[in-house]
Structure formats: C-alpha cells, structure tokens
C-alpha cells in the first residue's frame, strides 16, 4: 500500500511559509497532518530534521520544492504544541514523533488485553510489542519507549502496573 500524498504536496506555495496569518494557519494544519500520516505509514518514531529535509516528506523533487529548515522547525513546533512531538535535544535537531499519543496507545493495548480476557495477567514488554499474540495488532512492533510511555499512561489511570523483572520490565493489567 503506497502512501497517498495530500493535494497540497504538489502545490508550490505549500513550501513557502505564508505571511498571511489565516493562510499560514491552514498551511500548518495541512503540514502537521501530513507529517503524522507520513510517519504513521512508514512507522517512524523519530525524525532527524536534517535527514527529514532531504526525505520525500519535506522534499518534493517532482516540483523542485522543499521546505526550509526554519519552516520545518515551525511545523514541528506546531506538532509539539499539540502533544504529538517531543524534542530530543536542545538544538531541536532530533525529535520523537508520536503520531498516536501515549494515552491513545495505552487505550488500544488495554482494549486488546480486556478483549482477550487477560486482565490480571503479567506480560513482558517484549511479549507485548513482539509476541506472536499481538501480531495482528496495531501496536505490534511499537518501539519500547513508546510502549513504556503508554503503559505509564495506563498506570496513572490505575489500569496497569509496571514491574521490574530480572531481564527487563514487565507489566500487570488490572
């Protein structure tokens, strides 16, 4: 299944930050949703700004336009405000992209657990993300830090408890 680009992707003004406030707002919304859906499609959890600028996400070779680093920063900052992104360093050169927020992931995992009647059982983190049972689930192959965050979110809701085990971490659902 190939990624479907939005119409804006081939619209040259998409790659210039618009000075008009209203126009820019719409432009940024479009960029945010493009970044999230792109990362989701390619299962990307981290972005390096410099690398990303050369990737098809921000660089449209067909119309010879690419988003400038400054503009990328603006887009990513916008995502951060919405809670979908976290910077990994002070220079804002690398970031975590959460195209689904930890709470949402937590909900998905908990749904799967309760659907399969495994409440009150203990899992290792590896089991959850890479086990055979979860192969069909969306959270299969989730990076550990995302998984841990989602479980932490569940823990604060009182639906799970993270346990330290000999060879890593485990989790018990309630």
């Amino acid at each position, binding site marked *: 299944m190939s990624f479907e680009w939005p119409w*804006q992707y081939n619209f040259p*003004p998409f*790659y210039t930050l*618009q*000075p*008009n406030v209203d*126009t820019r707002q719409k432009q940024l919304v*479009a960029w945010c949703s493009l970044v999230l859906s792109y990362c989701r499609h390619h299962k990307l959890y981290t972005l390096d700004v410099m690398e990303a600028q050369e990737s098809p996400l921000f660089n449209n070779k067909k119309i*010879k336009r690419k988003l400038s680093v400054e503009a990328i920063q603006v887009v990513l900052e916008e995502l951060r405000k919405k809670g979908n992104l976290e910077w990994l360093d002070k220079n804002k050169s690398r970031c975590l992209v959460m195209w689904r927020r930890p709470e949402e992931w937590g909900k998905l995992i908990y749904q799967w657990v309760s659907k399969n009647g495994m409440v009150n059982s203990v899992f290792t983190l590896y089991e959850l993300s890479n086990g055979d049972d979860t192969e069909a689930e969306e959270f299969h192959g989730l990076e550990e830090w995302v998984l841990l965050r989602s479980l932490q979110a569940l823990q604060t809701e009182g639906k799970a408890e993270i346990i330290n085990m000999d060879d890593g971490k485990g989790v018990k659902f309630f």
Partner: protein
Amino acid sequence: MDRFSWSSGLLEINETLVIQQRGVRLYDGDDKAKLDVGVALLSTHRLIWRDAKNHECCIAMPLSQIIFLEEQAAGIGKSAKIVIHLHPASTSKEPGPYQHSKYSYIKLSFKEHGQIEFYRRLTEEMAQKRWENTPVSQPIPTGTGIQAGRTRAVGIVGIERKIEERRKETDKNISEAFEDLSKLMVKAKEMVELSRSIANKIKEKQGDITEDETIRFKSYLLSMGIANPVTRETHGSGTHYHMQLAKQLGDMLQAPLEERGGMMALTEVYCLVNRARGMELLSPEDLVNACKMFESLKLPLRLRVFDSGVMVVQLQSHSEEEMIASALDNVSEKGSLTAEEFAKLLGLSVLLSKERLLLAEKVGHLCRDDSVEGLRFYPNRF
C-alpha cells in the same frame, strides 16, 4: 655648523628624498653641537637634520655647500662618523643655529648605524649633482616659518591659500552655470506659449495631418506645459497653496490616470507634474502635501499608501475590491503569476503590480511560492 640655516623641513617640488637615518648627532668640527640626537635626511638638493623630539627644530644646508666627504670608522665607545668639508658660508645665507664657527667641516655621528648606506648615497648625490639639473623653482626655503609662508605655498599657509583659490574657481563656475539657467527660464515661458499656439493651430487644421500624428503631437504638448502653474509666489505658502495645487493636480492627472488603469506611483506623478510645470518645479514635499488634500477637497483622486510605504495616486472610482478581484482573476486564469508577469499583463509598473498582488494576498485570496525562481503568487487553495 654656521652653514646650516633654519628650515621647515618640507621638500620642494623638484626635490626628492634620497635617504634618512635616525640617531644622528651633529658635530661642529670636533666639538659636539649644542643639538640633541635627530634624524639626518638626504635629499637631491639638501642635507637636512631634524631634532628627534622637537620636530620644529630643523636645519638644512644645500648640497652645493659640500666640498668633499670622509669616513671615520667607529672605535671603542665611539660611533662611526662622516666628516663633511664645506665651502665658506655665503653672505646671503638665512640665519641658522650657529652664527659663526671656527671649523670648516662638520661631522655626522651615527649612533644607530646606517653610516655606510648614508655615505654611499651622499657620495652618489655629490657625483650626480642633481640640484643643478633640476633646480627648484625658487631658492630653497630657508629661514623661519613666517618668512617661508610669505614667499611661497609651503606648509599650512600654502594649503589654505590653495583651498581659497579652488573655492574662488568653483564660485565662478557655479555663477556661470546659473547664468545659463536663468536665460533658459526666460525662454521657457515663451516655449509654453509657443506650444499652446501650435496646439490651437492643429485644432483648426485638423484635416491636414493624420489623426495619429495629431494625437502624438498633442501628447508631447500636453506633457510640456501648464499655462499658469500654482506657485508659492502666486498663492502664498501653507494650506491655501497646497489646496490650489491639489485642484490643479486633480485636473491634470485625470487623463493620465485613466490611461494607466487608474493608478500611478507618486514618483511617476512627480515626474509628470514637474515636466508639465516647466521651470516652476514642485518639491516632493509640496506634492505629497497637495495629494493629502484630495480627500478633503472632494476631488476624484486619492493618495494611497501601501503597507510597504509605496505611495500612489489613484482615481477614487478605482476601488480596492476591484483591484483585488482583478488580481485574483488574472492569477487564477494563468495558474500563477510573478509581479513582472502581472505588470506586463496589465501594463502597470512592476512596483504597483506587486502591491496589488500583496494586497490580494493580505485579504487571503492569494498565497505565495517564494523559491529560487522568484516570488510567485497562486490562488489561495488552502
């Protein structure tokens, strides 16, 4: 030592510096001179010595005074010296540090070395006798500063005098130039009259020349003259003047504005108006002030200032909505436009067409694509 006389230390026009050496002490014969250590300068014409600390203290002697030279090697506690044997001082000599001397030679003592080169160059100059080939225009300036100043352009007095001369020259040039201008001013009124009478004649003999020629000739004349331009002389200064000026501008600009699609940059207006006024030129400030009066005088023109600061005069009927709509229409039709393309399309100046596009962008009808290929405007599809 009595051969030396006081000097300003400046070189004459034909005189060139050959060599100079620091740390030289003078000896009057075998006695140390009552002068401190200084710089010895050798020019093509003179031997000059200047005190190291007090530069005012400067003495010189023409090379022609020298008979021959001797070298004296350095010894223990003794610097190397050059012995210079001299002709007796001439009676017309300017005053120097010594009035009399029992010696017919002086010595240069080199505390900081350099005597070998100095000796070589001095011998060379003595052999070449360049002071004979290229005599300085007047006697070498000797004597104190006051005397030197009075005789020729030397030192600060000389520079001042040159500046004064140059200023007088400039003054003369300027007044000559303006003499021509005032003559031209007299003729200008006649020219306006002439163009008016020609215009009338053309009206009478309409059939004789072709329509096209008439129009062309008329347009030349039109841009030539306003018969009675409103001036500060005729209408005083201040508000009344600007009001009258605004009225005249209103009459005058109507036609050119319609021709240009209802809008002209203020600079263009300025040129057009001043060409028409002939000699009674308008200052930019007066023009702006007059244009500001359009609204209160209920004239069909308006001064408009764009966000960028560009000022234009436009017809009142020329509304903003229309301008924006036409910009959007044009851009939509072509897909995208640069200011240059839009200018060509409308026959406007690039500056004004860009203002229109920016205006349309401001209200959100257009958006921009700023790439290496330039600034392009697209319909706002966001």
